[in-house]
């Protein structure tokens, strides 16, 4: 547990040291926000799916809700008309499509914000699971 607390503090400090950048003039904050959500969601889905994949049997037995969430993220979904991607990637691809449409002025900002909120909520849920299972994992 001490190791987890120490690591968490170090990770928080590293994020703080990295700092946040200001937008360059002329950049659309909504587009940048969408890209930040896409990249964060990709990293977070990678995190939870790799944790689950590292010992699927253990998580299936000891944290079935977490494993079910990971399986939900893995279900194949159709994107870009003919492609099939895991749901985790398909949700990100969907936001990216809406972002491109917004950039080319084919969609309004409301549609982009709605897509952004959907992905953000799934990413937040994944982040919550990561927090839960890394705590449990530290006590194994």
């Amino acid at each position, binding site marked *: 547990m001490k190791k987890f607390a120490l690591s968490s503090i170090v990770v928080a400090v590293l994020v703080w040291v990295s700092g946040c950048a200001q937008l360059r003039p002329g950049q659309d904050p909504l587009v940048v926000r969408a890209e*930040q959500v896409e990249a964060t969601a990709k990293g977070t889905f990678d995190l939870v799916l790799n944790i689950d994949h590292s010992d699927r049997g253990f998580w299936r037995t000891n944290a079935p809700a977490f494993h079910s969430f990971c399986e939900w993220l893995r279900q194949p979904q159709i994107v870009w008309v003919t492609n099939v991607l895991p749901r985790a990637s398909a949700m990100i691809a969907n936001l990216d499509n809406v972002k491109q449409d917004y950039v080319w002025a084919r969609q309004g900002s409301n549609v982009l914000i709605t897509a952004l909120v959907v992905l953000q909520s799934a990413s937040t849920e994944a982040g919550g699971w990561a927090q839960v299972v890394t705590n449990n994992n530290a006590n194994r």
Partner: protein
Amino acid sequence: MPAIIAALPVIIDLIARLAPGFQHLITWVMAVRPVLQQDGAWTPELQEAFLQSLIKTKTDPAYQPD
């Protein structure tokens, strides 16, 4: 500050060795760190690379259902 940022990969590698259970968490930090420093929309190259990383998940074992 640039020196600290340059040293980050080494520091993170050391933490990974001290606490092996947290390698996934550290990978997440490495993935999210550029997001904090993003100051504009992606270039076409970055956009393409990101889409390719999504397509690669189709064959990633961690993304395959039971």
